[in-house]
């Protein structure tokens, strides 16, 4: 089936199998491997991207469902050679170690702040409940998101 999807501002048109998951479309068809796959049960959030501006788990969406949508991946966040402020805040606060959950975590965090611009620590923790990290204990991730909200 033919789908037209705007990925990071660029309109693409591709023939895809109906069963192709959005995450595989992004990684294997569009060649954007920044979006990672960490589980097969919609649990870990490593594959989080924005569809029409909102965070979704791209492993739990078919590419055909994204037909006509705007998808933003981690590659679309940095602009003009500079890190997005959320990426910068993760760096400043050491909010990543191995970095595998990081793209999904950053995408979830930017979506969270779009919805709750000035969250409490509890709201940040709840807002990131769909993203698992095994390295940081979340301490510095939460710190980075709060710092970005307050800046």
């Amino acid at each position, binding site marked *: *089936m033919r789908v037209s999807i705007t990925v990071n501002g660029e309109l693409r048109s591709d023939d895809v*199998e*109906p*069963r192709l*998951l959005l995450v*595989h479309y992004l990684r294997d068809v569009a060649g954007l491997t920044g979006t990672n796959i960490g589980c*097969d*049960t*919609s*649990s870990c*959030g490593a594959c*989080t991207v924005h*569809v029409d501006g*909102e*965070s*979704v*788990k791209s*492993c*739990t*969406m*078919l590419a*055909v*469902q994204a037909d006509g949508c705007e998808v933003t991946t981690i590659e679309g966040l940095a602009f003009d050679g500079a890190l997005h402020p959320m990426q910068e805040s993760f760096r400043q606060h050491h909010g990543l170690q191995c970095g595998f959950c990081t793209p999904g975590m950053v995408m*979830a965090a930017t*979506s*969270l702040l779009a*919805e709750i611009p000035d969250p409490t620590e509890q709201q940040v923790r*709840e*807002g990131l*409940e*769909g*993203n698992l990290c095994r390295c940081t204990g979340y301490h510095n991730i939460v710190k980075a998101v709060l710092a970005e909200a307050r800046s």
Partner: protein
Amino acid sequence: MIPASFEYTRASSVGEAVRMLAAGGEDAKVLAGGHSLLPLMKLRMATPSLLVDVGRVRELSYVRDAGDSLAVGALTRHFDLSRDELVARHAPLLAAVAGQIGDPQVRHRGTIGGSIAHGDPASDLPAACLALGASFVAVGPSGERRIAAADFFTGFLETALAPGELLVEIVVPKATGAGWSFQKFNRRAQDWAIVGCAVVRDGSTRVALVNMGASPLRSPGAEQALAAGASVAEAAERACDGLEPPSDLNASAEYRRHLASVLVTRALAEAGGAPGQEASP
């Protein structure tokens, strides 16, 4: 993991979806947000031959004031429900429940209709609809019909929806100012409830439970006790009368019974301030 192959078709209206479902036969499935169906398909626990995608039937995403009730389109997402002003005013329980489903990413995609039609006893929205005395509007080849929530959930992942029928609307009687509570007990916030309890007190008291049987259900024991003037403690003690909760990795049936009684106590206490009805001590 990856779903097995299937045919895919996209409906642009309710009528078209119903026709497509009819043409697709027994193995056709409706795809809305996909957050109940796709996880099962990825594990190949569901292998439909045809998916009818109703995700673009925009006419099904709404919350409307319908006089003494709210009309909620089946494609209304959990996220929208959790933030809707009409829902917050007239059915705050529904907003609270929707805001605790899964995680934000799930709430951005999952829809109320998908959750109701899936009929999972571990889901929160069916219990909320039971507590609110909601009813569901279904459209099929032979037209439209309305099914009370109390008659809808017929067994494990089974509902009163006939094959080929599409759930289009959830009708929620206004519970403006009524006492309510939602108690969800899980080990991680993103998980399904081990046990949940939704209570609405508006003259009478409805007590619905999550994950306490094969289907979403109300607690006849607690409701009857309250109707007979029993105290919260007595009602909580009877909350599991006649129920057969599951035993699984997360909890034994025995522990679920205990939790249900604790959560019913807490929910009734929190919902206590209903007009015209004092909370029992």
